[in-house]
């Protein structure tokens, strides 16, 4: 029964987001026209780069900001060194006299303290953050600025892509990020954005007066500040043409740490905020559906992931036992197709329907990102293997969240 309930909810979520996409897909092409704001209407923008031991990536991040197609006199860059212990300070010294860049330094206290420190110096009408492991496309800020044309908009979030896909794990994350582009757009249409991601999300400066500064928030300050904005019904939109590239984890170990931190942060923040949001109609779709289903989906993924791992382990164990009894042998597999032996149980059929809908979501994500579909090793790995691996960090993060055991940042 639990299986069917979880399958129903998961399928419902997929159908729902795809329906929203179909209803509003015409708006995707409309945003292009909004970019051409006259120079005098462009807001003064501050970009804060919190830095901690980022000697290898920070130059690329700053260079991409300096190359932005945005008036130089309307862009200020604050680099806040959060007590780096490597060569970051020396690397940053080259920008000491740059007219657009201001170098700030403080004792290490965590990303949120660096951002709050930077806020004291920020002069922009809109203030954004860019993680030092990310870089932006030339017209990204123009698209972000266009999002603020609507006076009610208080924050604009970008589309994030993987900037360094080399390993199979990074290619797999690229597929995942394409899906996130789709989800972020749909959530934006539903007024249900619940994360203003670290790379290149912008806020009107009043936001910090209305909701206060960044908080530690279980190492996910970008999620928590967004929830505070949603509490006050501040409008957050997604500028899908504002493209930011992020350096993704190369190894399983670093990916695991990143994901545990994200999921742990999400679950702990849900614990802190669920009373304000869950099933509260004043928060619209976010409270009624998006936050509850996002929480349930984590446990649902753990449930299905563990079932998958256990079933696979049992099959392998059984096979090993059979080989012990019969002696090892190898039969060339017969390619005689007999439909009789295809598993056509209801959960399997629904599972296939869900995979088909995920592919539709992926295609929608590619449409939004203006990319073409191709069968890559990342896609194959995402479809057949990623679920097994993801279970590991979902489970680990959930246990840590339950025990309130804070995961390491890196």
């Amino acid at each position, binding site marked *: 029964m639990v299986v069917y309930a979880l399958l129903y909810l998961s399928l419902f979520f997929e159908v729902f987001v795809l*329906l929203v996409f179909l209803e509003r897909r015409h708006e995707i092409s409309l945003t292009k026209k909004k970019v051409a704001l006259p120079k005098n209407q462009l807001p003064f923008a501050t970009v804060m780069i919190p830095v901690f031991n980022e000697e290898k990536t920070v130059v690329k991040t700053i260079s991409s900001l300096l190359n932005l197609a945005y008036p130089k006199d309307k862009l200020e860059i604050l680099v806040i060194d959060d007590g780096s212990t490597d060569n970051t300070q020396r690397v940053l010294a080259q920008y000491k006299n740059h007219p657009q860049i201001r170098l700030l330094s403080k004792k290490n206290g965590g990303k949120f303290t660096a951002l709050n420190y930077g806020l004291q110096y920020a002069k922009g009408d809109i203030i954004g953050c860019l993680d030092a492991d990310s870089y932006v496309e030339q017209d990204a800020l123009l698209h972000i600025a266009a999002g603020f044309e609507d006076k009610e908009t208080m924050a604009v979030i970008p589309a994030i892509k993987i900037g360094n896909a080399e390993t199979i794990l990074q290619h797999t994350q690229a597929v995942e990020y394409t899906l996130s582009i789709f989800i972020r757009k749909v959530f934006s249409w539903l*007024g249900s954005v619940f994360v203003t991601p670290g790379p290149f999300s912008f806020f009107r400066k009043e936001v910090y007066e209305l909701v206060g500064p960044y908080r530690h928030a279980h190492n996910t300050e970008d999620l928590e500040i967004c929830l505070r904005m949603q509490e006050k019904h501040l409008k957050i939109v997604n500028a899908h043409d504002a493209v930011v590239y992020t350096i993704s984890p190369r190894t399983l170990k670093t990916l695991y740490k990143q994901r545990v931190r994200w999921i742990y942060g999400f679950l702990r923040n849900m614990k802190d905020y669920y009373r304000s949001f869950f099933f509260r109609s*004043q928060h619209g779709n976010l409270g009624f559906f998006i936050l509850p289903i996002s929480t349930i989906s984590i446990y649902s993924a753990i449930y299905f992931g563990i079932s998958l791992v256990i079933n696979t382990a049992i099959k392998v164990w059984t096979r090993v036992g059979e080989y012990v*009894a019969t*002696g090892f042998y190898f039969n060339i597999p017969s390619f005689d197709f007999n439909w*009789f032996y295809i598993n*056509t*149980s209801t959960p399997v*059929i629904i599972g296939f329907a869900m995979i088909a809908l995920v592919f539709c979501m992926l295609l929608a994500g590619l449409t939004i990102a203006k990319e073409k579909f191709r069968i890559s090793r990342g896609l194959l790995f995402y479809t057949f293997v990623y679920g097994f691996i993801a279970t590991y960090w979902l489970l680990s993060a959930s246990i840590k969240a339950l025990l309130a055991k804070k995961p390491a940042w890196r």
Partner: protein
Amino acid sequence: MKRIAWRTYIIAFVITSTIFALAFGLSNTLNQKRLEEIRSIESKIAVDILSIETQFSLLEDLSCSDIGSTFLSKELASIGSQLQFMERERDPNDPEFLNLKKYYSLLLIKDQLLTKQVAEKCNTDTITILYFYSNKEEDCEDCGKQGAVLTRLQELYPEVRVYPFDYYLDTPAVEALVSVHNVDPEFPALKIKNQNYYGLKTLTDLEELIPELEELKKAREDSPRQDEVEAGAAKLESATSTEEN
């Protein structure tokens, strides 16, 4: 106060429910088709058995070369694996499925008796294994392995006839078979040449228990392989045609 997209939720509810209903319907239809397929093979085997029995009764003096092998074991094995698949994938206590399984057991018993009769009449030495298993996990942890061993045994020695029976299948014929062969409820249980064996028997164990298997292996190694025979025949034919030309 934010707007809730009620209309979209309702449409999504209808679509999701429809997909669910279709999945249930499709799964059910395919299961019914599977049962029909088993049923049709079973009735074909029943006709075949009846035909051989009749042949056997009518023509007492029929020569052994005319009787040959019944060739039913292969088809019975195919149903066996189909039933095994269904037992795994759907409720093994489903009455319709149980009926088919009972019928299958009857066919197995019939085939086994017929094989025995043919062996006696033609004075051939057929190796027959009766295999009693239980579907209760707590009763028989090794039944899966024993099944794999017997399947492998038949792959290696197609002459061996294996007849699997669910010990607890509620049908008088199987109960009678259990009683006739004096099989205790200890699983897996094998009846080989009037001797009962309990517990997992590996392939090596079976090869030791049935020395005839070694002879079968030797005979196969000594006789030319079928493909070699065919190749030789083709060579001969081509040589003959060249000579004729």
